[in-house]
């Protein structure tokens, strides 16, 4: 195994700007799983009340796993919670809204969404402080990627996805009014994470895929939100990434509205049929962060299966850079942590650029 010549930050930056990294970065999305190094339960971790312990959890996870960067995802309810949505925090499970009593009970309730200051509000404040704490400790050596759940994702948390999706067709004006308010908050949130030391912002546009919305509807409801948030990030000189673990992702729309450096994804774009085709069509324009299947491989895979999967992905995606070896979605918070380490080791073993 060759000796690393770059640190994680340099490596990720070089990879995502199609420069010359020493090797493929290894960065499974170890987010909630870091709670296991923090002394906090998953529920306590998600509540962001002990930011110092969270910082230490991430730092210790980095020591053990050796990944090149961390993403500031806590869970997808952070933003909705700050707007007033009731959130449940199971002790050993991912936080979720109380869908039995949604914050937005009718389409008429979109009006009640008020602009909030993310720097002062609940867990958004916690994430900003987490970013700042990590920036102090690892900001010079590892990539710190801020995280923003997209506007319509946030609204679906507040309304409940099913009702929200129907509102998109039945009450679009009310939804779009709320999108405008959420956008303003997300812009400030992204700015605050950058000011706290994030090197990049990852915008989760989960619904920009064939799994959920048509391309036309997605563009209509979230295209402009993506532009508004990513414009701020581009202007700050930081990297822009998207996350989308849906099937058949709209890479063309992502490019049009956000000009991302990379997309963290689990499946290929909607306009190709294989990973090889994906690399040929999109690999030179938008980097790929992915795409190890979290359940069957990162969680249930044998050491041999993990290594084989990583090797195969590196063979397709490493040429020409623009690739970070990672899981296609968050590394399962309950998966064996040594599997995350195996992913990084595979990047070191098979991903060295000659």
């Amino acid at each position, binding site marked *: 195994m060759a000796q690393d010549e770059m640190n994680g930050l340099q490596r990720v930056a070089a990879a995502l700007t199609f420069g010359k990294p020493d090797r493929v970065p290894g960065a499974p999305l170890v987010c909630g799983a870091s709670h296991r190094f923090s002394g906090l339960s998953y529920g306590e971790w998600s509540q962001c009340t002990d930011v110092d312990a969270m910082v230490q959890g991430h730092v210790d996870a980095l020591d053990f796993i050796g990944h090149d960067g961390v993403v500031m995802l806590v869970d997808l309810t952070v933003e909705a919670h700050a707007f007033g949505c009731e959130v449940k925090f199971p002790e050993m*499970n991912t936080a979720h809204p109380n*869908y039995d009593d949604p914050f937005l009970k009718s389409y008429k309730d979109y009006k009640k969404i008020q602009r909030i200051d993310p720097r002062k509000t609940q867990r958004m404040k916690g994430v900003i402080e987490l970013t700042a704490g990590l920036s102090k400790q690892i900001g010079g050596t590892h990539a710190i990627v801020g995280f923003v759940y997209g506007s319509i994702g946030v609204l679906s948390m507040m309304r409940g996805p099913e009702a929200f999706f*129907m509102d998109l067709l039945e009450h679009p004006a009310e939804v779009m009014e709320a999108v405008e308010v959420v956008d303003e908050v997300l812009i400030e949130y992204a700015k605050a994470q950058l000011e706290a030391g994030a090197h990049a912002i990852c915008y989760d546009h989960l619904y920009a895929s064939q799994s959920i919305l048509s391309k036309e509807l997605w563009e209509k409801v979230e295209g402009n939100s993506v532009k508004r948030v990513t414009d701020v990030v581009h202007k700050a000189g930081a990297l822009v990434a998207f996350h989308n673990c849906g099937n058949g992702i709209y890479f063309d729309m992502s490019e049009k509205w956000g000009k991302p450096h990379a997309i963290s994804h689990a499946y290929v774009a909607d306009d190709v049929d294989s990973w090889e085709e994906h690399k040929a069509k999109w690999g030179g324009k938008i980097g790929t962060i992915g795409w190890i299947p979290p359940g069957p491989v990162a969680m249930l895979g044998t050491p041999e299966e993990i290594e084989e999967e990583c090797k195969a992905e590196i063979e397709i995606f490493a040429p020409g850079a623009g690739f970070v070896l990672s899981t296609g979605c968050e590394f399962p918070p309950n998966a064996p942590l040594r599997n995350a380490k195996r992913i990084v080791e595979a990047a070191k073993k098979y991903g060295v650029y000659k």
Partner: protein
Amino acid sequence: MATKEKEQELIKRLQDAIINYKVADAKKIAEEAVAAGADAYTVTMEGLAGGMEVVSEKFDSHEYFVPETLLCAKALYAALDVLKPHIKLQAGGVARGQVVLGVMQGDVHDLGKNIIKAIFEASGWTVHDLGRDVPLKRFVEEQLKTDSDIVMLSAMMTTSMVGIKKLIPMIKEKNPKVKIMIGGAPITEKTVEEYGADITADNAPNALKEAMKMLETLRKGKAA
């Protein structure tokens, strides 16, 4: 008693209302069908199920996505609520199967489960929907109580997926013949194999196709 022509006209209008997700129209046409004395079973199977079959095809071919499909299901239920009390299984008719359906404990993502429910009900299946965040033993109890042919388990997170491994032996221990279908984002063929399930499906229309095949196998087994 509606004439055959009138019944066919109502069925066609009902199909159109479902396919074009016209919720109020679907309810109105169903009421009209009942008032005209049309056979509720025929109207349901040909109008609602026929309409949802087209919706399934549109979903499969990416012409319809989740919002459109949900609204079609809303139209379906608006009509079904009206027709259901008037349905009598026709003499000699063969009932479709029964399924127990639910989202695993610790998981509240029920969107996929709800689409499955609509498509199965439209096709004449009896669906025992346990909802979301369902304790494991509830699946076992409901299967035994209803003698359902298939248990369908949904999990959208790895943290809830692991419960399936524990649950399948609990169900099979009580009823070894029951078929288990599992689905959701983290589920793959590998999970099916590793957890001892019978099958997975990547979307609702495929789930229905697989369920029909399993039901056929089960019934052949019973007949043999």
